[in-house]
């Protein structure tokens, strides 16, 4: 009798033989094989085949085993749960292209000075961090703006055509700026979305106003040299990346 390649009629395969072969199969193959036919399903989902991989890979849920929760089901639960734990966060639903920064300085001696900058006009940080330098040299008013101890700074972020606005900070300076030294402003950011417990989000908005000295007729004055803004994590003391910041902001900005 020749060794033919033609497949046998199904009645020729006793299920005991199938079980013997099944002990050589990995979980993934067992799972696909279980949809071949009803007989294969019974064989391939048998508890004795799945007990070992289930208890090896997911010992913590294997003890839930019962007649209603066979090992192949538990394995699926464990596999899906483990995969979910390692899922990266979803893409943010807003982009830098959608955002506008509005920065305002106010002092007791001058009217408020505002700069409005679409994020598209700002240079991106090379490490994709959410921090931006805002040039003020080209703004005549700014470069003559004197900063004093009680200067108040406001940083608002606006979405698109004013669909939403979020105030990153609204701070007053303390003490006086000394020439050559910068003014630093920080404000804690509120908790977003899922957590109702209150307390800190672990994020702060930060602004640096670099001061340069000008000596004129009426003595020394501190003028705005440049402004930088960013979002910092107080857990790692690092600037947060752009994507994480966008995911944070979308909670407050999206209509």
């Amino acid at each position, binding site marked *: 009798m020749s060794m033919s390649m033609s497949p046998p009629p199904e009645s020729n395969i006793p299920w005991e033989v199938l079980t*013997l072969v099944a002990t050589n199969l*990995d979980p993934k193959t067992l799972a696909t094989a279980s949809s071949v036919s009803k007989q*294969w399903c019974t064989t391939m989902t048998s508890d004795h085949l799945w007990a070992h991989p289930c208890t090896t*890979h997911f010992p913590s849920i294997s003890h839930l085993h019962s007649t209603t929760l066979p090992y*192949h089901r538990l394995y*699926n639960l464990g596999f899906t749960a483990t995969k979910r734990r390692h899922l990266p966060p979803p893409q943010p639903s807003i982009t830098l292209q959608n955002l506008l920064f509005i920065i305002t300085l106010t002092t007791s001696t001058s009217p408020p000075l505002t700069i409005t900058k679409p994020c598209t006009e700002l240079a991106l940080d090379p490490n994709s961090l959410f921090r931006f330098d805002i040039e003020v040299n080209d703004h005549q008013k700014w470069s003559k703006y004197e900063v004093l101890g009680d200067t108040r700074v406001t940083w608002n972020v606006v979405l698109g055509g004013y669909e939403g606005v979020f105030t990153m900070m609204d701070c007053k300076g303390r003490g006086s700026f000394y020439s050559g030294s910068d003014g630093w402003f920080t404000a804690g950011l509120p908790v977003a979305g899922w957590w109702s417990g209150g307390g800190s989000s672990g994020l702060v908005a930060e602004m640096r106003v670099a001061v340069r000295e000008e000596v004129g007729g009426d003595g020394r004055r501190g003028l705005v040299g440049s402004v930088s803004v960013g979002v910092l994590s107080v857990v790692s003391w690092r600037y947060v990346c752009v994507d994480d910041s966008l995911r944070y902001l979308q909670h407050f900005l999206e209509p």
Partner: protein
Amino acid sequence: MAEVNETDQTPNLGDSTTPSQPKPEQITTTNVAVPIPDVGPQLQVVVDEFILKNGSSDEEVRTAARNDLRDFIEREEIGITTLLVVVKYAHEFKNADLLDAFCERVADLIKDKKVVGVREIFGIVNDFTPEEEHALRDEHPWAFED
């Protein structure tokens, strides 16, 4: 079996390279000839030779015997019917090593195949309704991701 640390890494559970069962330590093996009806004389000769060499105390001889058998099966493309017949008789005669070799070959034919492909090889008619089949896939969705 590779260790899995659930908390640190994504475990490599979706692959088909590791069998699900551990190899048993104590195997009841008898190394007598296994006459197999309905297979060609050529295969019977190869099987007999394997059994003979497998009984050797020299590990190298045994390893060579296993490899020779494996190569023969692959080279001659032994059909499913024959493979399963040998599995059946190897089991009846309690020859674990022979059983292993042939089970492995059948397993290799099933691994990494789509369900339709497996049905073709074994000549199985699908007796599920589309709804039943869909429900089954939903029980182990990770196995059907490409």
